[in-house]
């Protein structure tokens, strides 16, 4: 495995029309601007992790992500977030997302958000720690970046409070 290998086709699972449309948003050339970068501060075995998915996962005790407004306003996506305690399993969650089939996540949260795996890797000493809290937001953010302030600012503050150093991100 190396960064030079070119073999994953990120359009393979899209129907051809959708793939053609999505490609109109993606330049052919590599990204040229600056990219923010935080080097790993310590070895993996001492790092504290959190995980974030865009799959619209909420605890059953929390309000679900708002799908009704998006059905009326197709360009709008819920910009909020939900905290998910590290013990969260598929039994504890609602999954709301209008762009994917959510059935698989409801059967096994680890297909989308690897809480069980990160807890196990903590136990084995592969990673330092899984923080008390992981998170979900809602990935359809088509015309606005408000979700960064509404979701990621408070999330990142809580991550700092919990000593998080590295974040495992899983887009839906």
């Amino acid at each position, binding site marked *: 495995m190396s960064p030079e290998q070119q073999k994953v086709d990120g359009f393979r*699972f899209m129907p051809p029309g*959708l793939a053609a449309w999505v*490609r109109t948003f993606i330049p052919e050339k590599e990204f040229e601007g600056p990219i923010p*970068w935080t080097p790993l501060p310590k070895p993996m075995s001492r*790092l504290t992790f959190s995980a974030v998915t865009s799959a619209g996962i909420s605890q059953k005790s929390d309000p679900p992500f708002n799908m009704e407004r998006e059905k009326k306003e197709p360009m709008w996506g819920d910009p909020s977030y939900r905290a998910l305690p590290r013990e969260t399993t598929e039994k504890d969650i609602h999954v709301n997302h209008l762009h994917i089939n959510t059935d*698989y996540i409801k059967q096994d949260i680890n*297909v989308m958000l690897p809480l069980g795996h990160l807890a196990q890797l903590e136990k084995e000493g592969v*990673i330092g720690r899984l923080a008390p809290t992981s998170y979900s937001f809602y990935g359809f953010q088509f015309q606005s970046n408000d979700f960064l302030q509404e979701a990621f600012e408070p999330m990142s503050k809580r991550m700092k409070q919990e000593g998080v150093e590295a974040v495992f*991100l*899983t887009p839906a």
Partner: protein
Amino acid sequence: MGLAGRYLEEKGFSTVVLNPTHEFSRRVGIPRSAAIEFPYGRPLGQVGDWEGQRKVVLKTLEVLEKASKPGEVWHLPFTWPEDPKDTKWMPPEMSPVIKLYLEEIKRARQREAEKAKR
């Protein structure tokens, strides 16, 4: 999720995106990408396949550890066992934005088909 990765790196977190469409890094500039050729909604693997999911998690962590400069895309060596049309990853109802842009989507497909002929 690319923008989220950028935001978190700016705030001092090291991040890795397990990305089913790594091509978005060309638009957004994602700090570290682990590209995976798996259907949407299941980037870690199949329901109940603990060992398979674990391999994907470990490889993604390897990308977090080994990526040496911003913007690197590492291609993970995994193959989904089903044909794309059998994966049923799409929602039961067409999403609102797709309904809204249906004509534009058809035109994008036609343009690609014409370009391929030339």
